[in-house]
């Protein structure tokens, strides 16, 4: 029988990026906040120090920092006519665990979405007409605008110390930045990362074709920085062990380096690690959460009553917890009704390999997680799609993050995949190849969704979440188009051999393609097609907020984290200034 604990004001499920921000902000108001984290507590010192952390086999291949999928995983299938099977190895995406979550092992690539992303349906219909988009695609407006989020993007970037060059400050285009970006209110907190050799080669090729290259916005910092919370980050040393690893150097923005220590110093905040939340408990009306039930590291079950429940467990776990707890109506893809589980999206990525002669040395091992050079001309709706037969786009750039020995061995087509000839080719091309990234949108469809698996269960006996996903044809057409354009850039870069590899269907979970899982508990203006209102508050259970990329109606061109951070501060604001003063639904229909 679960032991019932003393009630608190706020409980957060998960102490990653969103949970840590919520913790600090609400504890600072004097509220009693409990953070439940299913994984262990970890800190830069001693847990992330080198040489231990620079172990490619352990962390990159064997995923030592990731969610323990022996205890809890997902099942996956491409379409409803298949049987979903559990993901026994993380390959396609890598959910985090432990304090800091995935924001410990991320790369630090910190892009804002575009203004049109937030009013995507309205924008696309206005520009191309109501019948332009494939009928299967279920894009909607988000319920919040870029202008409303801009101060929160700014706040998040200054929390992280993001290194970059503004391209548009209050409408005035700035040289050196991205001229196509949405307006920002001020410059980045630190200057851009040093441009790498691969970045410089890309810049030359792209500028030859008339594109405007700019430095990738990086939360791996270009110089020491003290953030508004009083925490200091250091200058990135380009060690090449960024994604899948933790930073030993305090140079990567993670909850541990930018905010969690402040929350932990506040006696109003209590972190409980190794605590697996089983469900959010609702009262008999089903419209009010009374708290959560969790199991601690010793296997003991507890009920933690709370006035406000914040689900901050990463996009995928957020949706699962809602499904397990009966918060909101489950999405049914056949009838198209219900909200929890709809509009799951991912990221459509592809690459172009540019092979050089031996006189051109790249030194790929001297890299940071986000020291790239990119262009924006093919992102989102930045180009005219009228005659193209698809919507959406991708950013393009040289954003190589490493030259690690187990993973990085580009070879040209025709190279045997093993044996002495393969080895010769790896040695020949290792230091003379630039791999370009095409990082594109992912449009939601009626048939891509999340629900609970009918067969498989986690270590606590609860149904796993089932992912049904395949690339919409629209996104594959988009990938082909932008990848072809990127091949042209590779040729302009002077590559001896340039090979484009556009994304092809069906989606496979066995090839890594980002951990940018989005949607499933989307925000919006219409309670029949969104699980949350514009403040990320559940339409159905007003004392539950669900914070993360699960709120995205679609996945934009760019990496989600900056937008997740902005939405977190936006929701914090609504909780502080509206909800706490008058608890209840913040949006009345």
């Amino acid at each position: 029988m679960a032991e019932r604990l003393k009630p608190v004001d706020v409980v957060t499920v998960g102490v990653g990026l969103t949970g840590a921000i919520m913790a600090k902000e609400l504890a600072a108001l004097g509220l009693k906040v409990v953070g439940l984290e299913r994984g262990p507590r970890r800190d830069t010192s001693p847990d992330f120090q080198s040489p231990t952390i620079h172990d490619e086999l352990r962390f990159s291949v064997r995923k030592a920092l990731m969610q323990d999928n022996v205890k809890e995983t997902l099942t996956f299938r491409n379409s409803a006519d298949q049987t979903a099977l559990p993901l026994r190895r993380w390959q396609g995406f890598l959910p985090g665990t432990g304090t800091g979550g995935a924001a410990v092992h991320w790369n630090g690539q910190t892009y804002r979405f575009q203004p049109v992303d937030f009013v995507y349906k309205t924008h696309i219909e206005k520009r191309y007409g109501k019948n332009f988009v494939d009928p299967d695609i279920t894009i909607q407006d988000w319920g919040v605008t870029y202008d409303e989020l801009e101060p929160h993007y700014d706040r998040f970037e200054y929390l992280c110390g993001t290194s970059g060059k503004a391209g548009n400050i209050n409408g005035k285009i700035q040289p050196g930045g991205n001229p196509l970006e949405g307006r920002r209110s001020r410059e980045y907190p630190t200057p851009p990362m040093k441009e790498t050799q691969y970045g410089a080669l890309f810049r030359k090729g792209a500028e030859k074709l008339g594109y405007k290259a700019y430095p990738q916005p990086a939360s791996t910092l270009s110089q020491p920085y003290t953030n508004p919370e009083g925490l200091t980050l250091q200058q990135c040393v380009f060690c090449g062990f960024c994604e899948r690893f933790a930073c030993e150097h305090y140079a990567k923005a993670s909850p541990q380096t930018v905010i969690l220590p402040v929350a932990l110093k506040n006696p109003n905040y209590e972190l409980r690690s190794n605590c697996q939340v089983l469900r959010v408990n609702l009262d008999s009306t089903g419209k009010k959460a009374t708290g959560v039930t969790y199991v601690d590291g010793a296997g003991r079950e507890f009920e933690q009553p709370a006035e406000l429940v914040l689900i901050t467990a990463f996009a995928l776990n957020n949706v699962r917890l809602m499904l397990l707890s009966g918060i909101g109506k489950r999405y049914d893809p056949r009838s198209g009704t219900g909200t929890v589980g709809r509009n799951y999206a991912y990221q459509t990525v592809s690459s172009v390999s540019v092979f050089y002669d031996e006189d051109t040395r790249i030194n790929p091992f001297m890299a940071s997680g986000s020291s790239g050079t990119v262009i924006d001309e093919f992102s989102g709706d930045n180009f005219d799609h009228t005659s193209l037969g698809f919507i959406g786009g991708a950013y393009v750039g040289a954003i190589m993050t490493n030259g690690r020995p187990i993973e990085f061995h580009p070879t040209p087509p025709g190279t045997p995949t093993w044996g002495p000839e393969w080895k010769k080719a790896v040695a020949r091309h290792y230091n003379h190849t630039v791999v370009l990234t095409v990082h594109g949108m992912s449009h939601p469809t009626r048939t891509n969704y999340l629900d609970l698996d009918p067969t498989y269960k986690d270590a606590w006996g609860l149904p796993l979440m089932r992912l049904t996903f395949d690339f919409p044809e629209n996104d594959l057409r988009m990938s082909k188009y932008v990848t072809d354009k990127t091949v042209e850039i590779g040729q302009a870069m002077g590559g001896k051999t340039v090979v484009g590899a556009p994304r092809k269907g069906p989606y496979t979970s066995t090839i890594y393609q980002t951990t940018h899982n989005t949607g499933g508990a989307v925000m919006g203006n219409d309670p029949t097609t969104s699980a949350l209102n514009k403040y990320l508050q559940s339409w159905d259970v007003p004392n539950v907020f669900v914070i993360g990329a699960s709120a995205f109606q679609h996945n934009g061109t760019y990496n989600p984290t900056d937008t997740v951070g902005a939405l977190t501060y936006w929701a914090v604001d609504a909780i502080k200034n509206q909800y706490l003063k008058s608890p209840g639904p913040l949006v009345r229909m």
Partner: protein
Amino acid sequence: MLAAGSAMAQGAARPADPKRGAVIAAQGTATVPACAQCHAFSGASDSSGAFPRLTGQPAPYLAEQMRDFASSKRDSAVMSPIAKGLSASDLEDVSAYFAAASGPFPLLAGPDAAIIKKGETLAREGDPAKGLQGCNNCHGPDGAGFPPRIPYLAGQYAEYIKLSLTMWKSGYRKNSPNVMKPVADRLDDQDIAAVAAFYQQIRNSTDTAQ
């Protein structure tokens, strides 16, 4: 031979000549005293703290420090005039000589085991309360160094390590504003004494000579 070296300095990227560097180390040049007078011919210097151990340091690191002395980016009343008096080839040659040299470690009285242990923790783990990463992250396993740019600390004299950290902390040494200065700022006197004591007594088999 020495004059020919100076004439060749401009623009010529000739490989460094450690034999020529040895002669400069032993005899100096027309305008500068011999390195050996302070650093000993092997570069092993002494433990006073005034003269760092140069033996086996990475050549590019030594050369970079010499260039910084010459430009006064790193300012030293003793080393700056010496570095200014050497040509670009001279300082490449001398750096190559010391990088390849080997020399003895004098017997030095060790401090408290507890101080060494504290230094070991700082070296390997850092200090979470201060947001300080371990020195080994950059300086290599127990201070073996990270060629080409990062010097070894293993076996470096404790008094010299203390002096260097103090110089960074005070702002007097300016040639690592974004890395060593923030590190030094987070160390107090006991931390400095501890890491210095720890590294002085390490005998690391990794040879950093390039």
